[in-house]
């Protein structure tokens, strides 16, 4: 069931990539050991820091999962950011309604986040299959529209009393925050949702006809008609599913991370997830793990300034180096050579 050769290759690639990052940091005159020690301490060093990492991991992993569906159907879902944002809008809508004061609020928020995100995804899909608009253009356009809607809401109908600031809405009532357990607010509900969705998606993508048909749509749209199904329908499905999952990511951002709606509610995690899914070549395990690695980088990196006095942009350099060198290594396939050498040494 589990592809060990693939794991070996990816592990070696990860090591090589880390090596290149080390080298890059040295070029900037920064000690990579200090930086990585600091990143790991900052993200996993205590229970509260670990939970902070989980809160960042939640939207990234969900967005990555969402993208696996659309990429399977051969679609570049650039609109993922907009779907996350609209999910957050849906969640905020409930949190600010009369339901917001009741403990049931987070559960209804999820429904609305799914609804808003799914519909936003559906728009892209309909533009694609009915209007023949390329999904990259419609996605990008819908991203802008979504962030426009959020800013309008924050500075208009949902503004704080007597204040017109793009700083964000009022905090949600505590009942509307994502339910947590323990002293450090472990977001059990989120983790359960993520694990459930990942398991479900693993089954759906690998063992159901929906999964196979999504993939065949992605591999060859023209051939699908010979197998008596309409690729258009599966493109729409992929977007509906992706938008819904991205909507949950937006819910996590609004009710889990900020407890309010802010203009940049998506945190750019949709675009980051595109990179993650590209790096992991749509592999569901690696997306799961890589999105966690990236959230470690983000949470640990945000403390580099406080701990080491380094500029915040260092973390951007690390991320970019990671993605670039990974993609290059993927192309030139150095790992295979290394694996062969290793196995030759051991066989002697």
């Amino acid at each position: 069931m589990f592809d060990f050769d693939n794991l070996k290759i990816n592990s070696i690639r990860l090591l090589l990539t880390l090596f290149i990052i080390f080298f890059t940091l040295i070029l900037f005159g920064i000690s990579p050991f200090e930086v990585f020690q600091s990143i790991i301490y900052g993200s996993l060093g205590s229970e509260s820091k670990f939970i902070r990492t989980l809160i960042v991991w939640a939207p990234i992993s969900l967005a990555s999962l969402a993208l696996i569906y659309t990429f399977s159907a051969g679609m570049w879902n650039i609109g993922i950011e907009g779907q996350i944002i609209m999910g957050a809008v849906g969640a905020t809508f409930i949190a600010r309604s009369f339901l917001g004061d009741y403990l049931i609020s987070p559960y209804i928020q999820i429904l609305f986040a799914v609804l808003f995100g799914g519909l936003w995804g559906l728009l892209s899909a309909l533009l694609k299959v009915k209007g023949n608009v390329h999904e990259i253009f419609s996605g990008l356009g819908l991203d802008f529209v979504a962030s426009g809607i959020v800013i309008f809401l924050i500075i208009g109908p949902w503004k704080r009393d007597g204040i017109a600031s793009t700083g964000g809405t009022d905090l949600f009532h505590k009942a509307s925050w994502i339910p947590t357990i323990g002293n450090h607010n472990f977001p059990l509900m989120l983790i359960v949702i993520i694990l459930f969705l990942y398991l479900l998606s693993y089954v759906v993508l690998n063992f159901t006809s929906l999964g196979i048909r999504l993939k065949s749509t992605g591999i060859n749209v023209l051939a699908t008609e010979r197998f008596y199904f309409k690729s258009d329908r599966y493109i729409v499905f992929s977007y509906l599913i992706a938008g819904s999952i991205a909507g949950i990511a937006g819910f996590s951002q609004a009710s889990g991370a900020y407890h309010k709606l802010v203009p940049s509610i998506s945190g750019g995690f949709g675009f980051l997830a595109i990179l993650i899914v590209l790096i992991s070549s749509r592999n569901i395990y690696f997306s799961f793990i890589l999105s966690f690695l990236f959230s470690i980088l983000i949470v640990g990196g945000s403390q580099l300034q406080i701990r080491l006095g380094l500029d915040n942009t260092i973390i951007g350099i690390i991320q970019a180096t990671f993605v670039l060198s990974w993609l290059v290594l993927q192309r030139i396939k150095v790992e295979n050579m290394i694996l062969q050498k290793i196995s030759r040494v051991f066989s002697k």
Partner: protein
Amino acid sequence: MKLFHKLILASIIGIFIISCGNTDDTESSSMDMSMDHGSTPFKFGMILVGPKDDKGWSQAHYEGGQYIEDKLGGEMIVADMINPADSPNLTVDQVISDMIDEGAQMIFATSDDMKDGVLAGAEQFPDVPIIWASGDSAKSDGKGYRSDLSNLGNIMGKMEYGKMIAGCAAALKSSNGHIGFLGPLINDETRRLANVAYLGASHCWQGDGELKFDVVWIGFWFHIPGVTSDPTQVANEFFDSGADVIISHIDTPEGLVVTGQRASEGQDVYVVGYDYEDSCATAPDVCLGVPYFNWGPEYLNAAMDVVHNEFSSKFIWQGPNWDNMNDVDSSMIGYKIGEAMSTSETTKLESFMDELASGKIELFKGPLNFQDGTTYLSDGKEATDNEIWYTPQLLEGMVGDSQ
């Protein structure tokens, strides 16, 4: 593959050299840090909403922190650009907790935008003194008073005076009496300071016709692309619509940059800066001056209280030292007169400042009406502190949004 091996070797050597070098550095710097009082050096955190070198609000706070370092010793831990757009998923209470992890014994959080995070952080760490600049959590008769947070104090300057002078300078220089006020977001503080700029301007306006005072808000303390309006564009629109002086009230110096550009194209336009002592340096030839915050002395007082274990939650709203507004050691609010003011204008402005200082001019005195025509202050009545701090509307005569 040969090349690859060499690369590996080179980077191992490089890593070794650099990590050795760095340990030396940290050792020597921690030696310098040792202080005469107590065994642990005093460390404090400084949370800034914008970049620490923004030539505006954030830099003024940063230099306030450096003032503590100079006078008291100790070490400042800085986190700048702490806002949702620049640091996604990093909240102020998380920064506070990280700084305390790093040994900070007190925290300065320096934006009204940080309210939610500051309150959460103060609840979470009741033993760590926190200063929230420009907030009202310690104002015992205020709307946002939190009696439960005895570790949270507020410091703010009476920028009212600085902005009155700014308004006066703008009106003295304007030839057509059309002034643009480049505003950030809308809240009590910004309405208050826009109003006083207008009061100062209408007091000093001596030209023909009525004074035109336009207020445009960009939506946040500084430009966030895609989120706020672009202050560069707003400044240009002011000039296009006929204004000849801009009063900047945002954290960053776009207003000065645009005015400088317009002037170099031959236009007769001027600007008043804000927040930071040296902001005129961006466009010295067109700068009428700058009302600025000098956070150092009050921040030092608060830090001394912490070091001596005497910190208590106080609401400090400090005015200028009228004997010498620009004294770095005593005046919370300063005003630097810019090079663009002529000698006669400077004389007029200085006499205005003198009259403000002596109390001869009291601008918060009725009759004053709000924009919608309702009475703010009836005839002869002077505003109370709360009426000034919590300003609900712009004043009659100003053009722009109140909410």
